[in-house]
Structures are given as C-alpha cells and as structure tokens.
C-alpha cells in the first residue's frame, strides 16, 4: 500500500488539488484494484445524495433541456492519447509538468485529445506519446502558459536537456474558414515553423523539437496548410528564457 494510495478517500471526496489529482490518476492507471476502490467510494458518497435530494425549480428543467438540445455531444476522440509515466519518474516530474497533465482534466487519465488526422498511424502516435511523456518527466521541465488573443490558452512544457517542448493549445477561437493555427520556434528573431494544425482546429498537443537556444514559441493564424513565414500578429507568444 503506497503512500499515494491513501489518497483514495480524499480523491473520491474531491478533496485534493489539481496536482495531486493528476498524480493520483496516474497511480490509478497502474492499479486496477485502486480504481475499483475509488469507484466504490465515489458511489458511496453518491448514495448519500438520496438523503439531500430536493426538487429543483421547474425552469431548471427547461433550461437544461434547451441548452442540451443546442449543445453537440463530444464524440469519442479518433485517437485517445493516454500515457502513463512510470512511478519513479513521476516523482521527478516537476509541478509544472503535472499542471499540464491536469489541464486535460475531465477525469481521464493523462490527457486525451482528438488527433489532427483520422488516418494518423497508431505506432507513430504511440512513439510521439512516449516523447511527450519524456519531456513532461524531464528533470529540467519548465512550464510556460499564456492566454491567447480572443480566448483560449497555450501552455508549453520545455526541456532544454531534451531539446524538446510540448505545446498544448486549448480552446482557441476558431481560426476561420480556410485557416489554421501554426506554431513557431523563434531564435534571435528568426522564426522556424514547428507545425501546422489541421484546418479549423482550435486545440492540439504538439511535440516541438529543436528548442534549445530559442527565446520564443509563437502561434499565428495562417491560411490552411501553413505559411513559410509567420503572418502577424502573433495570437500567442511564450518566452522560453
């Protein structure tokens, strides 16, 4: 019974902060009996809800049904990229990197996102996941985060020792018809493309290589397929040093 396992009760009660939640969910992924215990404890608290039930105002029903009718359901992601970090490496995981995992939230282990391409090869996805996990677990992993012009967030975990970074783009505004977001690594004022999102996509997780010596990671809105040089303005920029 590891120390982290004693968090099962606090986890079922939502009595932990985001970092510990991420850490515990990582543990759950490696411990099926713990998952069963948590499910039972969560259900135990749900069993108390009969005792506190209260009929809500009738307008709530109308509001919920109206809103749900106008809300598209999230479909299962084409690829569910879930990765686990081995226990000991997790200990080294900086708080910063854990925060990025926590960003995924939503109860899934690690984080998941729709892939940019439905035909993405599974093997490649798996290899990339390993690289992403390695960046997050790097002893020198550092977190940078900023909000995007017009809403949304860009979070980057960079590791100089690995010469790599993971960029997580979430809930950006739509780039508009025929446009896409593009990532740039900027060294001494010279931008180099670090990947183009699929047309219209508003979120992604990208592995960015060759960041050593770079000062900035930037995001621009470009015509579909990306551009050779960034089109101003930068919708987000993160200072790496």
């Amino acid at each position, binding site marked *: 019974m590891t120390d982290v396992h004693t968090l099962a009760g606090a986890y079922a009660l939502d*009595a932990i902060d985001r970092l510990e939640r991420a850490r515990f969910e990582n543990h759950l992924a490696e411990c099926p009996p713990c998952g069963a215990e948590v499910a039972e404890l969560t259900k135990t608290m749900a069993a108390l809800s009969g005792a506190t039930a209260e009929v809500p105002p009738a307008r709530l029903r109308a509001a919920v049904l109206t809103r749900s009718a106008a809300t598209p359901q999230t479909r299962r992601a084409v690829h569910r990229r879930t990765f686990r970090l081995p226990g000991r490496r997790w200990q080294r995981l900086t708080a910063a990197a854990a925060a990025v995992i926590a960003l995924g939230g939503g109860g899934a282990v690690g984080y998941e996102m729709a892939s940019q391409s439905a035909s993405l090869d599974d093997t490649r996805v798996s290899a990339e996941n390993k690289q992403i996990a390695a960046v997050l677990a790097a002893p020198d992993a550092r977190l940078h985060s900023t909000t995007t012009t017009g809403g949304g967030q860009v979070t980057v975990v960079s590791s100089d020792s690995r010469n790599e970074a993971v960029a997580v783009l979430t809930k950006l505004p739509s780039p508009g018809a025929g446009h896409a977001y593009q990532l740039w690594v900027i060294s001494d004022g010279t931008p180099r493309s670090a990947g183009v999102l699929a047309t219209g996509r508003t979120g992604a997780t990208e592995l960015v290589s060759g960041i050593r010596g770079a000062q900035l990671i930037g995001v621009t809105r470009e015509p579909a397929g990306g551009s050779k040089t960034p089109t101003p303005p930068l919708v987000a920029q993160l200072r790496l040093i």
Partner: protein
Amino acid sequence: MTCVAAGDHDAFAALYDAIAPRAYGLIRRIVRDPALAEEVTQDALVEVWRTAFRFDRERGSAAGWILAIAHHRAVDRVRAEQAAADRERRAGTAGVPFDEVVAEVTARLEHEAVRRCLRALTGIQREAILLAYYGGLTYRDVAEHLGAGLPTIKTRMRDGLIRLRDCLGVTLG
C-alpha cells in the same frame, strides 16, 4: 445512458427527471445559494449530456458518475468563491463559517440509514468526510481546520468512507 450517449434527447429528458433532484440537492448543499445552485446544476447536467460517451458502466453506476460530475462542479465553484472570499477577508471581511457545515448537513440528512451509518463513524472520520464533501474543502484545509496531521486526515477520509460503504452496503454493479 446508452441512449443518451447516442444523442437521444427524450432519453436525456427522462434522465433529467430521474437525477435532477439528487444533483440539485447535492449542489445546493455545497454552494448554498439557490440561484448559484441552479446555474451549477445546469452546467453539470449539460456536461453530462455533452460527454455521455465517457460513461463507463464497468466503473460504476450512471447516478454515481453524474453525481461525481455535479460534485466536482460545485466544489470548483466553491473553491473559486472561497479564493475570492480569502482575498476579501485579507481586506477585513468575515470568512466562511465551516463549523456550520457539519452541523447543518447532519441535521438535514433525514434518511435513516444514512444517519445511522454516519453515526457509526468516529467523530474525526465524520467531520473530515462531511467538511470535504459538503464544504468543498481539500484534505489540507480539513487538516488545518481540525488541527490534525495530513496523514491522519487522508487515512480517516479513506477508512471512514470504507466504513460508510460497508454500512450502506454499496457495491459496484
């Protein structure tokens, strides 16, 4: 739930009727303010609709899943408000009376089995669980509030819940 995940609006309306009183009652205990409780319940149930595909029958009941979402949303809201209140308190405003949480919740739990099972817990188990679940406190806050060590509170939350589970006869499936 399978129908809801497949996009069936009628099934979702039926699900609403079955679960809304429990979700609203729970959220209301946590956020206290009725108008805020309506807003949080609305957000939580729309999230249930939106993410219904995530529900995994093997990991518990639909009610448990939905109420966990409701709880999570309510606690998030309380913590956000609490953070704001802390900032205000530093400016001289009074804080939130957590002592009332346990007494109030216990008094309102009218269900006999629940009362009996809660009474079967030790004082610290009961307080730790109720403060966290209905007060939205983290175990660190609970430890500070009860003047107990972190390992003690973590352990009491877990063994208290296990005792509660056994007393209420909760099983998966």
